[in-house]
């Protein structure tokens, strides 16, 4: 149907409550080690000023962690990188607070909680924390949020010729929201995509196709069960492919009728997909 030119994969980041960091996630996916027994505490958003760091919602802490790690792996200054943020549900903790407070005492809504309730809160804090004036966007496409974000990020690379960090995250649902928007644990991922600079870089080729759910690549690794209950779990097959150094092709659902075929070239020994 339609395909984008190859883009380079310059940096990878992954953070889940039981797989805190790409190095651990990659090793668990490849069967080199088991997951840590205990859940990790949420990452600290060191990019933010101390007062904001403490008050930052989970979505912001998670998104800033993976965005920063991916830029580090890419050896890119975050201020020079455009960004695409995506989440299935946004901040379910704040949504629960807003709805519960509105039902009981609407005039007592906290102004800070309100401005943190916008879907672009993580993107906004990222731009503030990195002093970046480059454009960001914040999108949602329900269970297709991650695939939509990767496609938008790669499209920006192709159209603008600039590096783009693609960030996706979902957090634990809270209160009555949990009955209609179920999600467990924290899961955040990020990729820095950029115009290819040389032949040794690992690349990603994206193709949009019509197709059925039967063609979607299932998650197969030991990480699958750990992240299955998080709303962002559909991203995992791509990271399973990235964890191995061999070429791979993964099919993600992009909409009710469209598939996103992501073909990854082999990693070279110096490639950025290896832990640093």
């Amino acid at each position, binding site marked *: 149907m339609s395909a984008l030119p190859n883009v380079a994969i310059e940096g990878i980041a992954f953070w889940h409550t039981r797989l805190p960091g790409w190095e651990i996630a990659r090793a668990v996916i490849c069967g080199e080690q088991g997951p840590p027994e205990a859940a990790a505490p949420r990452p600290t958003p060191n990019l933010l000023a101390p007062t904001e760091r403490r008050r930052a919602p989970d979505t912001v802490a998670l998104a800033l962690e993976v965005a920063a790690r991916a830029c580090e792996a890419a050896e890119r200054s975050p201020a020079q990188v455009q960004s695409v943020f995506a989440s299935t549900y946004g901040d379910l903790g704040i949504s629960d607070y807003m709805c519960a407070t509105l*039902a009981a005492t609407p005039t007592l809504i906290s102004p800070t909680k309100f401005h943190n309730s916008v879907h672009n809160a993580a993107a906004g*804090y990222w731009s503030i924390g990195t002093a970046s004036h480059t454009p960001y966007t914040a999108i949602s496409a329900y269970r297709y949020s991650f695939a939509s974000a990767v496609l938008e990020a790669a499209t920006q690379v192709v159209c603008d010729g600039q590096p783009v960090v693609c960030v996706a995250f979902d957090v634990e649902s809270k209160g009555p929201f949990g009955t*209609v928007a179920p999600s467990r644990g924290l899961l955040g991922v990020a990729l820095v995509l950029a115009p290819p600079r040389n032949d040794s870089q690992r690349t990603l080729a994206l193709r949009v196709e*019509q197709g059925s759910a039967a063609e979607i690549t299932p998650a197969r690794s030991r990480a699958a069960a750990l992240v299955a209950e998080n709303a962002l779990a559909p991203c995992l097959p791509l990271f399973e492919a990235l964890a191995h150094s061999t070429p791979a092709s993964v099919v993600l659902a992009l909409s009710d009728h469209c598939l996103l075929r992501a073909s990854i070239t082999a990693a070279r020994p110096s490639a950025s997909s290896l832990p640093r």
Partner: protein
Amino acid sequence: MSTLKFRPLRVTAYTVCTAAGTGRAATLRALAERHSGLTRNDFGPSPLATWIGRVPGLEDEPLPARWAEWECRNNRLAWRGLVADDFVAAVAAARERHGAERIAVVIGTSTASIGASEDAYRRLEPDGRYPADLRRPIVHTPHSLGDFVQHALELRGMAVTVATACSSSAKVFGQAERLIRAGLADAAVVGGVDTLCGSTLFGFNSLELIASERCRPFDVARRGINIGEAAGFALLERAAEEGAWLLGYGESSDAHHMSTPHPEGTGARRALQDALATAQLMPASIEYINLHGTASSKNDEVEARLVAELFPAQTFASSTKGWTGHTLGAAGIVEAAITLIALEHGLLPGTLNTEQLDPVCGPQIRRENEQRRMQRALSFSFGFGGSNCVLAFGRGDPG
């Protein structure tokens, strides 16, 4: 990798629905007659003392039964917008031309159908579950709107909801243009919908940004915003014979504060410069600007300084929030549509309700309407989280 060059797109159909009117003709009439859609706030169980831009009659207009899964005020307003000006028919014709899988849906909103979740929390069952009529997961997600629009228009391509607060439905033009430029779609339905809900009314109230009177953009004594609700849509196509042009756009971030604009308008200036650069236009060739002009103290001050500094005196600039209220995530498409109406009919709307312009305003910012044929116009959208977007539209030869 060489970058793909921007080429102007045609706006082959568009529509808008606000408190000031449903559809383009009613909107043009309200603009020409300077008839505001703002009314005293009567929304919800304990309304704040403010004015709102409420679209009348939505309470009595349930969605057609086949879309009961998406039932909520926000999608009702989306449907009101989609049937206005026969937009559904225009998309059906485009479906014939391009195929349902080649038309992308890129739609903006700030709060989607959070009003349905607020309603559920007011009517929880004793065991904490949602009431039975609201156990429909899709309406409790930010993508409720994009998903509904795709189904209602019977499209089979990709569908994305952009949620960057008040720049949402301006940024959709950029994302859709990139999809078309990269060959991933032949056409795109863009637009946005936001509806009145407790989250925004009480949220903006908590930030002390809500005016107890009719909003007065750029007035020296302005006291804050009025929240409005609206729907608007546009169909973008590359190969088409008619329609105004999307000539360019610029996007940027303030990197300053979550709910206050950068004091020097650094991000806004960058978005403006990028929009002018892609459109290959100089400030002197801009005849009309639909400003963000929310009537908040800070926004209007920063925006007025920027316009005074960069544009010649003959550029006509105004805010139309006095007609519609601030429609938040829908503001981008509402004001894009008003800009397109202004281009089509040569009616430049002034700034309603404003009595005495703030001295910071240059001669560009006008209170009174003017009739003037013109070719080149901009629309500004600036949002929470420092997200800025400027759109450039034109008639005639795109240059």
